[in-house]
């Protein structure tokens, strides 16, 4: 077992050129053989369905379950009237495990509309659904607030409410003074509405007890949090909880922590002595898990007459729940995207009566980039500069915040390559100057993005087998981002064997401990561990540190020289963590708690970068916006797996189209909750909404960051898409979108 922090020994272990390996698991997915959490159907299975609150806030004064209990097949109805014996799991961002600190079903308090108030369990799904509809609740209702400006909200300063160094307001120089002295100024307010992640896989799974061991099959990005959290909630040893999640049907942040349905499900399974399956109705998922909160940004940019930035002030209000504060890091990228010598950030939280908002792909960076990159477009207009040129002339050398070097920074290359691929040079500067014969307005927009590169502790175990195959057991999760492809590719490439000779196991707490896979840190962190494990494996096999390996022969030889091994396999493990991380980070990972390092590392700061170029077409009569073409060029270090990396960027562009033009979770202040809680009314892009998407990578390895040269991609890919589209809408129409999504009525 090796425990390495950062092996800078890269020359001795060069990475082979990366081939276009097809996605691992694709065959299982196209044949329907891939098994997701709710596909598990053990004998004797019972079915659960929750009942949710229809009051916006208050207390339950009566809960009538008699009629429901009389439905044939109903086995159990759990509610606060029962003693479930469930302890709090704690908020994931406060040394806990759950998406919010509130665990429903424990008392009569209703914090928000849609909060679960009962769980009905029956022999069949139809009986459970029928009975759930018969549970009647009476409420003592209280006033509530679900909008930022509503009466009864409470606003708190982040640096006072969450006094942690990395959450303090970013202040560099005297931004207010420099802004006042600037000859060119932009001062505008931008807003992004609430959104939901809506992965296609519904929240849910199966809980079953094997003796005194709880086995959970559920799609999650954090099997370790489910393990640790359920152990804490049920008062059992974490080793008595197994979480199995080989395939996750999309996460996007929604499945990044323990959901509150699981502990009651485990209690039901224990009481019944039967496995119980719960698949939340789609409508429930809009309140049963986190969402992207409303954010409002006042951005002030000061520049000289050429458009060179002198000052930036970025003030953000983010929606919060009453209970928990989602640590906001909007200014982490807005202070660093450009070489701005004076910057002041301020982040506040506005408490409202909702479930605790949380992480949704590029949770802070997408809204922050919408604000900053829109403001920059406004500045380009004011300065009479081309938006690409303006960005290039404001590129940063060292990190403006810390003064440390970037581990790598190729934003300028992204902008130049993107402009070339897009044909940006042909763009006429004036808005409304590209019009087709039918009156359709065409606009071209650009925006940049950045995302912090974080690294988490990972344990990887490689088993070289006598038949020449290699099994990689890695703490990570496959949500479709392609982590198994990147890992298989890395093992195969290193040993010079076919990818089909490598098996990757992720998402199984029986095998290795699992840190949360989110923040795009999955691939870079797991590759680091696999890289170290490969060196260890080579040592144990007695083969050179590089070059092709005849695995079967090497395993046989190792078995002959070490008869205490059974000759069937040679095992090597490595445990890695981020540069500069304390040993406690590994303990936290083993406990299922979050422990990321970065983006500030001992000798540098690390970010991924991207530039997006968008073409929109705005119809002449009703000004409906369509995105006909996007070019995206990313700087994610070495591209670990080209096929899946390109898919990540294309998918993020589709996300950006939804974010810019259609996705908005509607609230009604009379009722609370979210009212468009289904896939017909929460409008995500369909195939017909998506035009041509071209993806390219700078591809420059970042060996300053880590020996694999890989930065991160899945999140940065979304950052900047929406403002590129918004800026294109301005270029087409002359109307400046300052709120997302951009609606037809905004352009009338």
């Amino acid at each position, binding site marked *: 077992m090796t425990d390495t922090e950062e092996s800078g020994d890269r020359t001795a272990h060069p990475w082979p050129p990366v081939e276009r390996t097809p996605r691992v698991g694709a065959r299982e997915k196209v044949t329907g053989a891939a098994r997701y959490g709710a596909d598990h159907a053990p004998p004797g299975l019972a079915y659960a369905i929750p009942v949710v609150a229809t009051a916006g806030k208050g207390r339950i004064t009566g809960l009538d379950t008699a009629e429901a209990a009389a439905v044939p097949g109903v086995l159990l109805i759990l509610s606060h009237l029962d003693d479930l014996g469930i302890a709090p799991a704690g908020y994931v961002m406060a040394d806990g495990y759950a998406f919010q600190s509130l665990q429903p079903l424990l008392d009569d308090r209703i914090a928000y509309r849609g909060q679960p108030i009962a769980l009905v369990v029956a022999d069949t799904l*139809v009986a459970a659904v029928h009975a759930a509809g018969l549970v009647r609740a009476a409420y003592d209702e209280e006033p509530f607030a679900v909008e930022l400006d509503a009466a009864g909200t409470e606003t708190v300063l982040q640096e006072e409410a969450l006094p942690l160094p990395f959450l303090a307001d970013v202040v560099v120089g005297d931004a207010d003074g420099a802004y006042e002295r600037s000859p060119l100024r932009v001062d505008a307010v931008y807003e992004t509405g609430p959104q939901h992640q809506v992965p*296609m*896989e519904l929240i849910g799974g199966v809980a079953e007890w094997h003796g005194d061991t709880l086995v959970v099959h559920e799609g999650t990005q954090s099997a370790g949090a489910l393990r640790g959290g359920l152990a804490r909630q049920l008062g059992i040893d974490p080793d008595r909880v197994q979480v199995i999640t080989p395939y996750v049907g999309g996460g996007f942040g929604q499945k990044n922590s323990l959901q509150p349905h699981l502990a009651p499900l485990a209690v039901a399974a224990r009481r019944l002595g039967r496995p119980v399956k719960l*698949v939340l109705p789609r409508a429930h998922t809009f309140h049963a898990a986190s969402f992207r909160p409303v954010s409002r940004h006042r951005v002030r940019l000061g520049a000289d007459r050429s458009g060179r930035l002198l000052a930036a002030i970025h003030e953000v209000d983010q929606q919060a729940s009453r209970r928990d504060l989602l640590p906001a890091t909007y200014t982490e990228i807005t202070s660093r995207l450009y070489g701005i010598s004076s910057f002041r950030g301020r982040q506040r939280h506005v408490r409202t009566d909702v479930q605790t908002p949380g992480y949704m792909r590029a949770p802070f960076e997408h809204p922050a980039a919408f604000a900053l990159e829109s403001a920059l477009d406004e500045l380009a207009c004011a300065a009479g500069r081309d938006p690409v040129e303006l960005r290039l002339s404001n590129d940063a050398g060292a990190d403006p915040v810390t003064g440390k070097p970037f581990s790598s920074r190729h934003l300028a290359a992204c902008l130049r390559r993107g402009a070339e691929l897009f044909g940006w040079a042909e763009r006429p500067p004036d808005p409304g100057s590209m019009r087709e014969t039918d009156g359709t307005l065409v606009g071209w927009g650009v925006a940049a993005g950045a995302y912090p590169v974080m690294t988490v502790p990972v344990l990887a175990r490689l088993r070289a087998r006598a038949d020449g195959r290699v099994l990689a057991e890695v703490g990570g999760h496959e949500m479709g981002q392609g982590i198994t492809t990147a890992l298989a590719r890395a093992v195969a490439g290193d040993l010079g064997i076919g990818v089909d000779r490598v098996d990757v196991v992720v998402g199984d707490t029986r095998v290795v401990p699992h840190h949360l896979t989110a923040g795009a840190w999955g691939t870079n962190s797991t590759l680091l561990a696999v890289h170290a494990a490969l060196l260890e494996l080579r040592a144990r096999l007695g083969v050179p540190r590089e070059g092709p390996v005849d695995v079967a022969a090497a395993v046989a030889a190792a078995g002959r020289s070490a008869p205490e091994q059974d000759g069937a396999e040679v095992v090597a493990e490595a445990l890695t963590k981020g540069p500069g991380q304390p040993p406690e980070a590994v303990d936290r990972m083993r406990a299922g708690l979050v422990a990321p390092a970065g983006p500030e590392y001992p000798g540098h700061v690390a970010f991924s970068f991207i530039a997006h170029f968008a073409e929109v077409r705005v119809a002449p009569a009703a000004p409906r916006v369509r995105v006909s073409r996007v070019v995206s060029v990313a700087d994610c270090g070495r591209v670990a797996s080209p096929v899946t990396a390109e*898919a990540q960027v294309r998918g993020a562009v589709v996300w950006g189209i939804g974010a810019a033009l259609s996705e908005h979770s509607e609230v009604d202040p009379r009722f609370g909750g979210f009212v468009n809680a289904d*896939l017909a009314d929460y409008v995500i*892009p369909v*195939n017909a909404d998506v035009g041509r998407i071209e993806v390219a990578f700078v591809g420059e390895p970042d060996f300053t960051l880590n020996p694999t040269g890989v930065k991160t991609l899945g999140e940065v890919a979304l950052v900047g898409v929406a403002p590129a589209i918004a800026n294109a809408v301005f270029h087409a129409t002359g109307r400046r979108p300052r709120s997302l999504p951009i609606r037809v009525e905004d352009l009338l």
Partner: protein
Amino acid sequence: MTSEVVTEFTVNGQAVRLDLDPRESLLDVLRERLGLTGSKKGCDHGQCGACTVHVDGRRVVSCLLPAVQVNGRSVRTIEGVAGPDGALHPLQQAFVDHDALQCGYCTPGQVMSGLACIAEGNAGADDDIREHMSGNLCRCGAYPGILAAVRAAAGRREG
């Protein structure tokens, strides 16, 4: 208690006889009674297409179809698309080749819709494919790959 209804149909060529509650959807019967979990539940409201199967050769969202209504009919699911020897159908292979998927959860429904899209004669132009594949949501955003896969399986080049 709702009385059960004897329902006989074929699934992927196999005869099935079940006593069904009339409220049970075809999707739940496939998944929970027959172990055919390839068809996925993404909304249960006919809004996402993840549960798409073929009934008598036509695509349907199986979450909206009471299973008793397939009495006497022939159902084909994703499990019945590959050859008996495991050989992928050309459209399945095209999905692999064009990386028309990420998390894979919507993929069985996309494949079933793609087969129907081609059989219906709606794969003649890219915009036709986009339109006729728009009943199947993909949150990962694999739409360009799905378009390319259906186009390739329909024997067309880009355009």
